[in-house]
């Protein structure tokens, strides 16, 4: 009897706590979302050079003219196409090369391995923008590729090369942690069957690390999708290679800013990433990301 009473009390307290947490988080989330709400509300307005007063958090009308304008003008489709191509190619190449490197650094003994890996780690500490000037110069001097006599500045290949190169050290570092956690005994079975490192890599390590590689790919994808600085320096001057972040910034800078265009374009650029995150958020193995890093 007494036990039941106590349980009841425990339960009510629990429900009360749940309601409290819910309301607190809801309020916090609302405040957090204000910038997004403003963005959405403003994208449905027709400003015509005068900003609306008072500023709105909730849309009062549903005017899609900003969206139709953005979709038909301003190279939006070119930018979208470029962003999709650049991002997907880079993620595939970067993750594959990094997986190979991570295998080499985690499963194969060779002299100088730790030193070389230390160099990789060291580059991670460098600010990303440090190298942009020489990278620009190196790309400019790669003139031996047919069809690109002016070097790789302003070309898709150049941008993808830089994106891939700058992500290798970090990706290798994280994946190495995961690959190390795959039991050695598993690979021995492949060796017994007469398989070498490549069989181990493709038949054991890659399949078992799918969640880790997937998680990393999602984060990488998001990073490349929004990358601005490198794209601005390398392809900013080439109208046909413009990416979404560059286009958004340009919409902002042109004459008097038409905010409804800026926000409509922003929302359009945001939607694919949100959908992607929602689909995969349950499958992300974030715990491992930090574990690999902390254990070092």
């Amino acid at each position, binding site marked *: 009897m007494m036990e039941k009473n106590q349980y009841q009390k425990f339960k009510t307290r629990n429900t009360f706590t749940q309601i409290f947490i819910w309301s607190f988080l809801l309020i916090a989330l609302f405040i957090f979302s204000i910038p997004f709400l403003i963005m959405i509300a403003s994208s449905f307005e027709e400003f015509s050079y005068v900003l609306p*007063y008072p500023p709105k958090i909730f849309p009062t009308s549903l005017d899609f003219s900003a969206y139709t304008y953005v979709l038909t003008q301003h190279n939006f489709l070119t930018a979208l196409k470029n962003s999709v191509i650049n991002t997907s190619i880079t993620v595939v190449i970067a993750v594959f090369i990094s997986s190979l490197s991570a295998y080499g650094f985690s499963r194969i003994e060779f002299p100088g391995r730790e030193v070389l890996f230390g160099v990789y780690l060291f580059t991670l500490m460098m*600010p*990303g923008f440090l190298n942009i000037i020489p990278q620009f110069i190196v790309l400019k001097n790669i003139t031996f590729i047919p069809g690109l006599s002016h070097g790789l500045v302003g070309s898709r290949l150049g941008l993808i090369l830089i994106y891939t*190169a700058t992500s290798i050290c970090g990706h290798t570092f994280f994946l190495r942690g995961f690959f190390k956690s795959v039991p050695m005994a598993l690979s021995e079975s492949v060796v017994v069957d007469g398989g070498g490192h490549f069989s181990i890599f493709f038949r054991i390590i890659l399949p078992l690390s799918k969640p880790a590689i997937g998680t990393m790919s999602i984060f990488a994808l998001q990073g490349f999708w*929004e990358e601005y*600085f490198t794209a601005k320096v390398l392809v900013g001057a080439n109208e046909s290679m413009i990416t979404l972040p560059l286009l958004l910034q340009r919409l902002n800078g042109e004459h008097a800013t038409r*905010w409804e265009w800026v926000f409509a374009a922003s929302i359009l650029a945001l939607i694919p990433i949100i959908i992607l995150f929602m689909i995969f*958020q*349950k499958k992300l193995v974030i715990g491992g990301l930090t574990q690999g890093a*902390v254990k070092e």
Partner: protein
Amino acid sequence: MKRMLLTKKRLKKGLKGWLSALPFILPGLILVSVFILYPMIFTIQISLSDYRIVTGEITPVGLLNYKNVLFETKEFWYAYRNNFLYAIVTVPLIIFGGLIFSYLVNNLKKGQTFFKVGFYLPVITSWVIVSLVFKYMFGNSNTGMINYLLVDVFHILDDYVPWLYRQWTGNGAIWLMGIWKNMGWAMLIFLASLQGIPKELYESASIDGAGIWNKFRYITISAVKPTIYFVMVNMIIGAFNVFIQVMLLTSGNPNGTTTVLQYLLYNRAFSKFEFGEASAIGLISAVTIVVLTIILNRTFLLDQNRNGE
């Protein structure tokens, strides 16, 4: 004789190791060498020279670029100060907020995903987009949300403030945006490490009568300590990569008092074509980050050892 044989054996083994490792590490190694390591060395050279990008001429000038950067204008010191201030102001708040939110979300029975995605939205939104929204919110007349609320609705201020045109309000807007943008990331990382804490710990603490605060303090905090360190180091290094928000919100105005190192570097290199000075700025920031990381590592390792005893 025996020794020579041994060295030979070791050499052979080493060579064999390299041969089997090369197919795996070579593609990465080539890219890293050409586009990361060589540029690093080149940056050092440029920082010590007068570099003309059009002709490719490099004239050594010694430490002149460093002297110019450090002593010619005040801009560098503003930038240096602002990067540190950004770290000092935003990192603790990001960690604190991330911890609180992750703890609360983790304690929910229903709706975890909803809040997780909700708080994570700013993280997946590009810096360009959020900078544009913040620029709009901090607009200097009554059409900016902040001015509208403070002057027209709540009458806290008498007149509209040009937020982004003043030193401290401009910096404040940059900090606020940094906190808002990164808190969801910290939350997600903390959430992952919270979910690794065995439930029994909390249950036994509940039976002992521990409240929500005590459980947070004694169980949660000690369990996520390594993760806190991970988030902290990431965010501090991130604080030295601040760029887009400064470029879009304030452009370093007024008089460079809201500038940061990366924006300064960008400006010197691609507006003024002072590649030497830009490289010097980059290297000074790089050295700062390395020193900072070493200091953080030391402090943290000491702290951990003390806890272990």
